[in-house]
């Protein structure tokens, strides 16, 4: 059965990422409790929102006596990148039913996205794509929710001196390296990173990641276009 093989390949590919996701999940479980919310709120965040950085932003805003509206806007701004991921994945799944795509959408996240696209781009076989994605996504979801529950239970037992939050950018680093393959992708990454930092310094807050990403996409696409059609003098 090819789909089972593909699902297993997805689970195998995501398994090492759990080393970075589990510590982040512990924080996502412990933080709401530390700010005075109950454990169900932490589990609700991890299952219904299922996006770590935005979950922490919601808790942060509400614990600083911010309004629910500000918390929602912060979370949705942080998660805007999901639109980019959705647009990037959709062309590969045209052969799948809408129901399956809508189910897959619920599990969409950074790690599964960054694993799936390079694999799908390198392999013309359409049938195994969603199975690979689901194998990776389901294992990640289980690990994320389990880590959240552990974080609720263990709470403050995680020492502050171990920088667990730093695990997240480190996992992204491992995902970034293989997608930098040529000059356009290098320009996209360098521009994306630098513009995100400049935007954050300018006070763009959670929007700075999107500003950086859009600038990087534009820069990479421009370099790519120039490479294809040498500009006339």
């Amino acid at each position, binding site marked *: 059965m090819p789909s089972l093989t593909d699902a297993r390949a997805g689970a195998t590919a995501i398994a*090492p990422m759990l*080393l970075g996701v589990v510590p982040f999940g512990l924080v996502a479980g412990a933080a709401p409790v530390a700010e005075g*919310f109950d454990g169900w709120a932490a589990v*609700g965040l991890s299952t*219904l*929102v*299922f996006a770590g950085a*935005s979950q922490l932003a*919601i808790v942060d805003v*509400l614990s600083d006596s911010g309004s*629910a509206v500000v*918390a*929602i806007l912060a*979370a*949705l701004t942080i998660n805007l990148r*999901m*639109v*980019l991921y*959705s*647009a*990037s*994945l959709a*062309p590969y*799944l045209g052969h799948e039913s809408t129901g399956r*795509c809508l189910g*897959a959408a*619920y599990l969409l996240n950074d790690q599964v996205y*960054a694993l799936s*696209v*390079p694999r799908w781009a390198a392999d013309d076989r359409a049938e195994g794509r969603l199975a690979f994605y689901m194998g990776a996504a389901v294992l990640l979801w289980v690990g994320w929710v389990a880590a959240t529950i552990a974080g609720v239970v263990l709470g403050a037992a995680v020492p502050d001196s171990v*920088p667990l939050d*730093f*695990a997240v*950018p*480190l*996992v992204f*680093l*491992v995902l*970034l*390296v293989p*997608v*930098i393959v040529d000059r356009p*992708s*290098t320009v*996209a990454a360098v521009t*994306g*990173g630098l513009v*995100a*930092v400049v935007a*954050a310094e300018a006070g763009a807050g959670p929007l700075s*990641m*999107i500003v*950086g*990403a859009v600038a*990087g*996409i534009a820069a*990479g*696409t421009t370099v*790519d*276009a120039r490479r294809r059609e040498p500009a006339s003098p």
Partner: protein
Amino acid sequence: MSRIWPAILISGAGTYAMRASFLAFAHRIVTVPPAVARILRQIPPAALAAIILPALVRPDGHLDLLQPRLLAGILAAIVAWRTRNVGLTLVVGIGVVAGVHWL
């Protein structure tokens, strides 16, 4: 305190809508114009770098190059590039930050 549930439900619904935005119409996409495909190809490097670099150079919300996370990130990037190993990259990155903290 109960304010968190409306925030969870609306953020969850909104995030799902963004996740489904293009996937819901995947079956209508027969072929992707090459120009669009070239734009989509730039999303992973640009988006990932836009998450990573701010975490390395402004961990406390302001630009600061003289702190362990930048050094840890550079060393972890070298490890990630040479080995593609998540565990090793995490050990090196977190180890450098924790090590500098304890020194």
